[in-house]
């Protein structure tokens, strides 16, 4: 792979990481606000936690890598 294509791939991966971080920040702020005004609403609070965990497991922990074949390239 030539250097330009590699750089482009790196930038794309870094952008994805930043996008996930942005979503995590928005969800956490929403969670904090909801917890301060309606702490008995545990279902939406746990729902937000599930969403955040899903993002981290899929995009940061790269769970799909586990199911990739031996010969597949590292993402």
């Amino acid at each position: 792979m030539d250097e330009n294509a590699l750089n482009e791939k790196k930038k794309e991966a870094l952008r994805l990481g930043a996008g996930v971080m942005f979503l995590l920040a928005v969800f956490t702020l929403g969670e904090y606000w909801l917890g301060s005004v309606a702490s008995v609403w545990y279902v939406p609070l746990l729902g937000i936690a599930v969403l955040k965990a899903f993002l981290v497991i899929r995009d940061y922990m790269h769970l799909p890598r586990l199911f990739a074949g031996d010969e597949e390239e590292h993402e």
Partner: protein
Amino acid sequence: MTTHVTTIADYRRKLSINRLGLWLFILSDAFVFGGLFVSRFYLLGTGVRPEVNQFLGFAVTAVLLTSSFFMNRAETAMVHGDRKLFLNSTLMTFLLGTLFLVGVVGLEWQIAPFGPGDDVVASLFYTMTGFHAFHVLTGVIFLAIVYRNGRKGLYTAERHWAVEACAVYWHFVDVVWIFFYPALYLIGKPLL
């Protein structure tokens, strides 16, 4: 040349086995954390929570999530052979992880108006945060080792299993806190 190709193929095969092993370890560890999480709701229900500082909880959560962002950057950088970005991001993750520990153990534990043996609520709070903090401490040590080895140039874009393992472990610790944060700091009214 043939030897090199065989070595890479062997490495990839080992990599997939290593990944499976790591995820099995994470799954088994998740059951322990899951047990603590369920205990919190079984013993306290959804109406009460420990009397803790909500803003401090928010702050340490923000610190841990940001550390995960930097860990992801570090791994991405290593995958693409950018050693400088890898080292800087690993160092940032290490510092933020340490800051999280200071926030929970050094601050929250000191200002909490209850001790570990006071009652069920207190006991749950210290067990959950303590068990998690121990995992963060382990992750911080892992990060320090990865940083040191990275400085020595032991990782390449093709071979960096330790970096990947460290990243997955670190994000797992983050995922646990994602569930502990609302359970301890947000759901229910403080038990006075």
